[in-house]
């Protein structure tokens, strides 16, 4: 089933390339819907909900002597991210029906290829498959930006490719060193299995070696997330990419970075993480505030949302490095929630752009009068993004921050962050309200600008079509459902998260005697 999830989109992509171009979009939609069906079926078959085990596993031997065995499988966290991918993809395809008019065959082919690669990343259980898929996501995205992007697309696509590729090369170096060290310890038997390497890294590497591994992984995944100060590819790529490209980029591709942090960095180099978590947390906090202030002065709506991604993902990383269950749960929720709400915002901006051919806040205004349905959705998703309680964004943001707050360094909730980290990061909440509402105030509300002309040639009515509403409604439903029933994700991933964090419990117990980890209550920093 796991292989099916990876290979089906690939197959679909080939079928699209060989079949006539006018069928491309229908074929792509059908393929992605079938894949969605398969993934939902997989979710029902899946036995690992709430159990933390790896299910749906399967392996293919490639070159056995070199330890090259391709293995796939899913635990609850991966499967949830796969579901996010398969859920967003049909919407992304449906959303580009009108926007993409040239070279449709290639476009949908690349999109499905991208889906295959992203699914592969989440399902890979060995480093080779993981890395191949991780890198392969760049290729379709490169072409999607370079061919169907807007004005500055050539520069953006090249920068995106080279920047993230350079980052992940360093990660590859880290992985290879780890595998080499494993082979050394096991008498020359190579293995790239993630679990084997994780065990090896935890048990055999010294703190010094772990720190280097941490650095190598952090560079690659940090570029992808993106963490301050390696974020500058993102606004450019987002602004230039076509709508569906931005949606997938924000919705799933960025999550490859945080998923990498969760899957590799946290389990593989725990001691180094404990040592360096404050550093990473400070980078994320800088990112949160810095990007939020930059958002404030943007005039291009799409760029504003792009920078807001940098700010939002800062919370996600902060939650991970709080190193306690609430933070990691919050972070996983954040990955999903950001995918839904920011993805939807990119869709909305795309829909507006198709009609007015501008994204400049100075030229837009009063769209609530002309496009009430669009405006309703816009305000809704902005609020989800701002973190209005009852919608999805709030739960994850709250969990990340409270986890950071309580990770006070001593006492009952061990960790290396503390109240100050959370207090400063929480300023990001205020700033988010500020820049997003200013944007809404300028674009959605206010007097309707007389200069704003709806493009008749776009073939679209003034307000949203049924197709466009169909794209947005599932996302809105997702926002509400996850807002009031986050347990759907929290309960099901709790054990997996606890297993990942078990190693930290040991470390904290060792380094802070008297503090029974995650057991009873105390004051943050009280015993210092």
């Amino acid at each position: 089933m796991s292989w099916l999830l990876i290979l089906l989109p690939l197959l679909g992509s080939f079928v699209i390339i060989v079949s006539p171009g006018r069928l491309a979009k229908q074929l792509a939609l059908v393929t992605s819907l079938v894949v969605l069906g398969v993934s939902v079926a997989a979710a029902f078959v899946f036995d690992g909900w709430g159990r933390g085990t790896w299910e749906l596993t399967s392996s293919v031997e490639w070159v056995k002597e070199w330890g090259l065995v391709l293995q796939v499988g899913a635990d609850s966290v991966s499967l949830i991210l796969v579901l996010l991918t398969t859920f967003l993809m049909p919407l992304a395809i449906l959303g580009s029906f009108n926007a993409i008019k040239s070279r449709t065959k290639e476009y949908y082919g690349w999109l499905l290829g991208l889906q295959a690669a992203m699914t592969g990343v989440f399902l890979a259980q060995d480093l080779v498959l993981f890395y191949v898929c991780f890198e392969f996501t760049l290729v379709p995205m490169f072409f999607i930006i370079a061919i169907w992007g807007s004005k500055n697309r050539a520069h953006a696509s090249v920068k995106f490719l080279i920047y993230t590729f350079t980052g992940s090369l360093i990660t590859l170096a880290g992985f290879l060193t780890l595998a080499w060290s494993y082979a050394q310890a096991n008498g020359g038997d190579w293995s790239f299995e993630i679990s084997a390497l994780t065990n090896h890294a935890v048990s055999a590497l010294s703190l010094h070696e772990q720190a280097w591994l941490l650095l190598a992984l952090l560079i690659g995944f940090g570029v992808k997330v993106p963490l301050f100060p390696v974020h500058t590819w993102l606004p450019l790529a987002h602004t230039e990419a076509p709508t569906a490209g931005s949606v997938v980029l924000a919705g799933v591709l960025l999550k490859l970075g945080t998923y990498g942090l969760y899957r590799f960095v946290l389990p593989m180099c725990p001691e180094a993480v404990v040592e360096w978590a404050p550093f990473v947390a400070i980078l994320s906090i800088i990112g949160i505030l810095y990007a939020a202030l930059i958002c404030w002065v943007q005039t291009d709506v799409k760029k504003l949302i792009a920078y807001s991604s940098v700010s939002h993902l800062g919370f996600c990383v902060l939650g991970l490095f709080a190193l306690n269950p609430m933070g990691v749960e919050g972070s996983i929720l954040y990955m999903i929630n950001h995918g839904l709400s920011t993805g939807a915002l990119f869709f909305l901006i795309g829909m507006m752009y198709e009609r007015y051919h501008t994204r400049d806040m100075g030229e837009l205004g009063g769209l609530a009068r002309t496009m009430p349905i669009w405006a309703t959705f816009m305000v809704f998703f902005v609020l989800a993004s701002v973190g209005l309680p009852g919608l999805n964004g709030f739960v994850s943001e709250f969990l990340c921050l409270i986890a950071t707050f309580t990770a006070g360094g001593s006492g009952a909730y061990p960790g290396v962050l503390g109240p100050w980290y959370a207090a400063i990061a929480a300023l990001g909440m205020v700033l988010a309200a500020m820049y997003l509402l200013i944007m809404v105030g300028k674009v959605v509300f206010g007097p309707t600008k007389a200069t704003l002309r709806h493009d008749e040639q776009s073939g679209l009515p003034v307000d949203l079509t049924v197709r466009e509403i169909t794209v947005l409604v599932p996302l809105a439903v997702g926002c509400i459902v996850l807002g009031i029933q986050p347990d759907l994700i929290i309960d099901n991933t709790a054990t997996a998260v606890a297993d990942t964090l078990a190693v930290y419990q040991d470390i904290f117990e060792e380094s802070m005697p008297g503090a029974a980890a995650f057991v009873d209550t105390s004051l943050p920093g009280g015993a210092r």
Partner: protein
Amino acid sequence: MIDVTLQLARIVQAMPPVPASEVLHVSGQWWIGFILWCPLISLVLCGLCAACRVKSKLPAWITVFSLAISFVLTLLLAFMDTPPERVELFKWINVHWDGGSFVANFAFYIDSLTILWMSFVTGLGALIALYASEYMEPDVGRGYARFFAGISAFLFAMICLVMGDNLLMLYLGWEGVGFASYWLIGYYYQKPEAVAAAKKAFIVNRIGDLGLALAIYLIWSTFGTIQYNELITVLDAGTYLPVYENWSVQAIPYLLMLAAFGKSAQLPLYVWLPDAMEGPTPVSALIHAATMVTAGVYLIARMYPFFLLAPESLHVVAWVGGLTALLAATIGMAQYDIKRIFAYSTISQLGYMFLGLGVLTTYGAAYHVFTHAFFKAVLFLTCGAIMHGFAGQLDLRKISGLRRMKGWRIVSWTMFIGCLCLAGFPLTSGYFSKDAILAEAFVSQGPGFEVLGWMAIFTAFLTAYYTFRVWCRVCAGEVRCEPGDEHHGDDHDAGTHGGEFHPHAPRFAINIVLLLIAAGALLAAVPYFMGNEVEHVAGGWVADMVHDSTAAEGVPGHPEHPASALHGAEAHHGSILGMDPHVAMYWISACVGGLGLLLAFWLHLWRRQDADRLRSWLLSRFWTRWLPVAMENKWYVDEVYHAFIRAPLWLFGHIFYAIDRYIIDGLFVDGTARLPRLLARCFQPLQNGMLQSYAVTMAGGAVLIALLMLLMLQFFTGGAVS
């Protein structure tokens, strides 16, 4: 420290079984949930109406009906007179891990404080929705459904806020009412001022929300729970824990205070409330006068045990409240827009409530909230009726003699009742509730509380003056009116027929609601004389209600704890001018109120020219000129905020953006990318495209390699080549 931790932990862990059976009985009353679900259903239905473009008053009737059901259910709940109880609706956020958990569910915590608040929230909500059904008439088929959906959303959030069983539920309501207020202030979204005001309200509130969020983090990380019943059990456990001295417990009330000041428009976060008057008037009445803005008072009353752990925080609350009351009253004196005057008076009255909380009379604060909800709703609703009838005219210099106009009698006399209550005229509801606070300022002991008390009395004088300034100008005097230039609403055709202006008088719905709420405002004095089951607490029914709740002044019984000492001060009755403060206050505030009233009648009814003369006299003197100017310009607080907060942040935004583009991206990223390119430039001349030069290079290279090999061979073999 560790043992403190363990001690606390033990209490928290040992907590649920014992008290849950005693204090808490989990109700099986299935219908309680419908208090919350009714507005939600109404929200959904109104949303559907908006989507289907319903062109009738259907949304209004849906809303009024469902809010009325909520109100009836609330009354039912009140008459059941149950002990504090929890009602679980469904699970919300639950994170469990090995030995710990974070639990925040959709659940109600119902005690008498909840019921007190709920009674006027749902009651006034239903009545004001009824009023709005007529007021918003011009928008039927356009924003009508959107408006009532907003009202329903507001009630839903407010009920979550008041009835929630944990702090996160409160937070949900807290932000929810903020959002509903954003929605409704920005109702006329084509007006830039309305949009700006809505944005400002949400953002300023967000600053307060930040405080609430941090307080929640702190409470959870200290006590391991955010559910009221568990928290109260810990705090009422009767043991004073040394851990309470810790900064993390001491900081909690200050953070909660920030939240309360944001929502209830106190210094320094009050600036959003006057601007919020851009919204339709029923919204101002419901949200920005009667209910939402009192959420801050509710929060502090609900979390009162935490404040008692850090008594200094209550002094801050008292002083902020007192200063806000005075400042807002001075601004209110100098405004000309009726609605804004009442907005400032709301801020001022909220200041009284905080003063009450600060001087240890939660009862006085709660009672003032209760009475204020009624009389301020009346005042705003009469304002709305005037605005409705005079095409948006709100300038008190341009309307006069309303009570002699046809069809306006109910409006002017209900306004008179509202004004009497607000001014604290003897035997009206406002008189009793305000006295309860003022007297306590002299009873309680705190830094400068006596000064604060006199300041509050002076403010009461100002209140009486500016209130009747409005009434005398608008309702009394010669009959005269000018229509406003804008039509309330976007662009409906107001009553200008053929060049001559005819104000259209309010009809049935508005009049009946005005009468009902005015009656409520008068009857709000009755609870003062009824009930009083609890001994030694004066003040009737409201005092009973407060006494049964978390706001009762219960303190962990540690003898050395400062809060206990403070609490004990209640036994020591202070005095004012050698009399018992409670008795003295009846006379003093009656005199003060009467004086203010007379002054207003003199300057604004009998000899209106004297008011202008006074103003020009003040303006002509160098030493006094600043007073009216500063008051009319609201003490320049907005400008100060703009210059010291907004502008620097905005500047930082630009600086960061420049750094991002030119330094991080330009210098580091592109600079790094440029290095290999520079290197390549060095060898570029070789790439000249000429076939033969390539060949020469190749040959040269081959020769070089051969030479190198020869050299190396010689080097390694010691020259033994031949």
